[in-house]
């Protein structure tokens, strides 16, 4: 393995070890009234953090110090690796990463959660479903519209009327839309 690739592989462990170190510092500052002879609430998280940091350090040392560090695999991992050797077409169907799709998906989801209180569940969901499906590459617009609109209505009905979940209705004109739909569907 090239030195650069080894550093890249060690990076996540370094980040985790650093985060673990910071959380250990936080755990050391947990405030409580110590009772004589009993362990405090900081002991358990500190023990876990110690194990986490040690495992990360072990991985970092192994990756940086050895050119070809072997990995101890779990039982399923071993069996899946053997399966991948037997059925490469099925098991290792590696494709080009679609970063734009992933980025768009995450951004849309964050946006959806960010605006749902203001825009209301129905409007936000129709737009979210339609955008998600369109960004995913689906181009039959009539189906797309039906699936987004119908789906949002169905979910609104089910969760508000059947499961009694108080979904966000939005504010201003958006609230008017939601309230009208709720009235039409007999939701109080």
């Amino acid at each position, binding site marked *: 393995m090239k030195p650069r690739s080894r550093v890249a592989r060690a990076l996540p462990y370094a980040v985790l070890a650093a985060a673990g170190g910071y959380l250990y510092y936080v755990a050391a500052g947990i405030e409580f009234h110590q009772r004589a002879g009993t362990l405090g609430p900081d002991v358990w998280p500190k023990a876990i953090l110690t194990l986490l940091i040690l495992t990360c350090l072990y991985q970092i040392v192994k990756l940086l110090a050895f050119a070809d560090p072997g990995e101890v695999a779990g039982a399923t991992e071993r069996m899946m690796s053997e399966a991948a050797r037997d059925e490469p077409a099925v098991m290792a169907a590696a494709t080009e990463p679609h970063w734009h799709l992933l980025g768009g998906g995450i951004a849309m989801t964050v946006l959806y959660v960010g605006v749902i209180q203001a825009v209301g569940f129905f409007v936000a969901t129709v737009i979210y479903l339609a955008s998600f*499906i369109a960004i995913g590459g689906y181009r039959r617009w009539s189906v797309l519209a039906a699936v987004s609109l119908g789906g949002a209505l169905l979910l609104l009905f089910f969760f508000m009327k059947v499961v009694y979940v108080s979904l966000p209705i939005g504010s201003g004109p958006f609230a008017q839309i939601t309230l009208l739909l709720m009235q039409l569907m007999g939701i109080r």
Partner: protein
Amino acid sequence: MEALLTQLGAGFVSVFAPANFAALVAGLIVGLLVAVLPGLTLVMGVVLALPFTYTMGITPAIILLTAMYVSGTYAGAWTAILFKVPGEPIDVPMLWDGYTMARKGEAAQALGWTLLSALFGGLVAATAMVLLSQPIARLALTFSTPEYFAILFFGLASVVALGGATLANALISLFIGLLIATVGVDDTYGAHRFTFGVRILSDGIDYLIVMVGAFGLGEIFMRMEQGFKSVPLQSVDAIKTRLPRMSEVLAAKNTFIRGSLLGIVIGIVPGAGATVASFLSYGIEALHGRRKAQMGSGIPEGIIAPQTAATASVGGAMIPLITMGIPGSGATAIILGAFLLHGLQPGPQVFVTSSHIVYSVFASLFVAVIGMCLIGYFAAKVIVRVLDFPEVIVSAYVVMCCILGAFAARNNITDVWLLVVFGVLGYLAERLRFPVPPLVLGVILGPLAEQNFMTTMISFSNDWTVFFTRPVSGPIMVIGVLTLLYPVYRHWRATSRGSR
């Protein structure tokens, strides 16, 4: 025995009550659909179904989720056999003999063997569940906190050692999960741990949010990165199931029995699930089976071994859940969540306080296994057509179910933000090859493990050796340690052989 049969009989009567039976049928159909779709795993399916059970009674809710769980181990085999598309990792072994049989023009026979294997494995495991649960619950009543801690330690050790990743990464995932479980106000001292002044974190992070985020949303983000694709379906109209003759079944009886027993045992072990059972059973058949030399060439034993074990693991996994309140797999963790949401804590006492619910669930497993096979026999052709449905639309609805599930838990938008955080974390974990199941089981079992550890320390004057010196906890702890060390030993042996 008579009392047990009476209670089970009452359970069967309860299962056929309209609400319970409707839940069972719905669970079976959704479970079969989820299993067929390659993008949805059975755990994800059960996670997504949970919010729909909030307003149900406890019995139909548990019946629905259990039916989904059991049918999720079956239908993925159809697409593996017919189209070389395993619906779940469980179904990968079906490619070796199941798909090969189909290529030889024996697809109907392969589906017949799958059906019979699921039926046999499921019914044997359901019987074992009924027979073993009461004795195990009685035994569990004698357990104290060191024994419970030892069982939890063993469960966590097995999820790491048996998991689908490297040991170090699985350990790191587990530690992160255990750490997430410490967030909130500590029960003993009332101390705030890792809350960073955020009020909602004082209540802790609900493990359901972590599960839905990491398993559901994380998986969708992963599929987005890979790009949505659809499976071209060929000759769906020709799909039919042909059951084997009795003489053929009798010739393979040992494989049926071996697979079922292995599935039950693997199911009982916390941390190991249907995937491990399926692979291990196939491996054992290939090593010790009557026709071991022909394995992989399209013989029924290559279908029976993984399918009986996978379906039997469901009954096995329900045993520690019901008798000790310890979920051993992702799906049973959600079923535990459903129990708790409805105010019932599974454990040894449940046979005294709520035996009618327990026996209804037991009876429902028998009915579910038979029902899923009937649906499989008559409707496999129809269900397989779901593959024609665009993956992107299914994914969009999965995201919606994740969001609604998280929101409905406490009617709080902060939970949805946490869901997105855990979705991204789940995606990153998958991307960097840190397995998600140990993380989730760490979050679920962490509070139980800490509580039992701390209580033991208080009761035994901080003497940690007590875990190793008591007659029950000692051996369990040692088995747990050996479980963790076995992959290291295996790796060391393989490398030392290689270097020679």
